[in-house]
């Protein structure tokens, strides 16, 4: 199999003296802070992207396809022109794409945890949630990338946000923050469910109704009453409303505060649930 590498490696296998010399009994360094440990795990996520760049496909190609598809599919029928529809759709399709991408956090964790490396992480004397927080921090970079991609495609197609650069940045920032919080649902499922496939299945089951039964594609005013009721309580509706208003430049602070509060609640519920499962695994 790897006879040649094995041969050279064996030739350079050192003596007991060299080995003994690296076994230090020096004073151990102080354990890193919670933040430092999380950032180190975040660095691991960056390294994984560096070595497996194909995994960026779903944060670039997928959002582009989503944007093009829905703009040209619904634009003419719903708003008279694709350009007019885009002004309404873009913030929503950005939220939909990024929130859908959060499910890979759960899938990634599920495959990762099956490997021995998590055994090592879990026997390290560091802040316990650091491995997971770092992993999600790495995913945050993917969310930023996806949101940026969609914004660029939108601008090319004719999206003209009245909120300007600041409004767009605030919108993306709020969306990324919400997605970070939302990811903790998937870390819980990633630890709880047995296989990658079942994590995928559950994520789809939750994400499809959540993103489609919202105000992303059409004005909820046209829907039957019972559906309007669901759309109104759907958190995605609030995120879309907040991002839309930020990008449009009319600061709807109520929706923004709602999203911030929802994010905090998500982390407070699913963070501890995830950690409970992580410690028991």
């Amino acid at each position, binding site marked *: 199999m790897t006879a040649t590498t094995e041969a050279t490696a*064996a030739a350079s296998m050192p003596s007991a003296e060299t080995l003994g010399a*690296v076994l230090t009994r020096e004073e151990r360094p102080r354990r890193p802070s919670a933040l430092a440990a999380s950032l180190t795990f975040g660095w691991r996520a960056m390294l994984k992207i560096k070595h497996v760049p194909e995994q960026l496909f779903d944060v670039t190609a997928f959002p582009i396809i989503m944007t093009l598809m829905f703009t040209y599919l619904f634009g003419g029928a719903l708003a008279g022109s694709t350009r007019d529809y885009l002004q309404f759709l873009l913030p929503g399709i950005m939220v939909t794409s990024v929130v859908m991408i959060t499910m890979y956090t759960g899938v990634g964790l599920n495959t990762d945890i099956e490997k021995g490396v998590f055994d*090592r992480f879990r*026997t*390290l004397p560091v802040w316990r949630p650091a491995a997971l927080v770092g992993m999600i921090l790495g995913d945050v970079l993917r969310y930023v990338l996806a949101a940026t991609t969609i914004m660029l495609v939108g601008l090319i197609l004719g999206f003209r946000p009245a909120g300007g650069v600041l409004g767009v940045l605030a919108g993306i920032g709020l969306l990324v923050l919400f997605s970070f919080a939302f990811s903790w649902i998937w870390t819980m499922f990633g630890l709880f469910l047995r296989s990658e496939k079942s994590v995928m299945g559950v994520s789809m089951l939750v994400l499809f109704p959540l993103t489609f039964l919202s105000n992303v594609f059409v004005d909820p005013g046209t829907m039957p009453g019972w559906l309007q009721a669901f759309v109104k309580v759907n958190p995605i509706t609030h995120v879309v409303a907040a991002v839309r208003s930020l990008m449009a430049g009319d600061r709807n602070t109520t929706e923004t505060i709602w999203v911030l509060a929802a994010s905090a609640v998500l982390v407070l519920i699913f963070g501890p649930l995830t950690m409970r499962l992580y410690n028991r695994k």
Partner: protein
Amino acid sequence: MSAPAIETNGLVKTFKDNRAVDGVDLTVPPGTVYGLLGPNGAGKTTVVRMLATLLRPDGGEARVFGHDVVREADTVRSRVSLTGQYASVDEDLTGTENLVLLARLLGHGKRAARDRAAQLLEAFGLTEAAARQVKKYSGGMRRRIDIAASILNTPDLLFLDEPTTGLDPRSRNQVWDIIRVVVAHGTTVLLTTQYLDEADRLAGRIAVIDHGRVIAEGTPGSLKASIGSGTVHVRLRDGAQRPEAVRLLAAVLGTDVQTEADPVALTARAGVEGSDRGAAEQASRALAALAEAGIVVDDFSLGQPSLDEVFLALTDRPIPEEVPA
């Protein structure tokens, strides 16, 4: 340091209705290699995972250097390292990246982490492979990077879960050499293995585990004395002479002789406790006795008893067919 490196009392772990670990008592003195010997599914890995704070015991208690593995898990973690049955490093990352990552998590600064990683890669003969992803490493190299990762901070207690399973003989020898050096520098090692030979070479004491219980415990010497230090395998030219050969071997070796399905084959333990002669001397006497009686022997060998034979001797039954966990 007066507390034992490991001390367990009635340790139990149940998965659904399977008692994977069923009341294990162990005492491991510091500075030694302790072997947990048993077949697949015996509960060795489960014991290690509980001691390494990865699994919560369902019953009994376990202390590492006097610290409870549940209540003082963090203190235990600061003193142990684990090299699992499967590579406990990130296969997507390079050798250097893995060691730097772990060194940083142990609190080393950027510079110190890089230096330490380079130093360990050098010491483990992996400098050339440093920039390669671990998934491209051979089995032996993987084991070495794994052990290197475990001694970034020299641990007081190192768990090695089947460190040589699946390795070629040369890589296995390298791992043995590393273990010897690590112990010589004061680290206690808990080693699980399926090979009696390995436990015999490395461990000061061995516990034989079966169905989650310790069925024998002692030094390799005392264990072998009770089960016989060697096994004699004989193949006769003429199957008709087998009953005569069985009688002769039983008389010379003082043990039961097993006949195999093959009509010309015989197996017997040699060097059993109570006989004043070593296994080799007994075996040569047995061979002479066969020749004297005019029984033609085609093949004759004296080997270490295998785990199968240890089990047969200790439990009077072969290794159970067990689905690996």
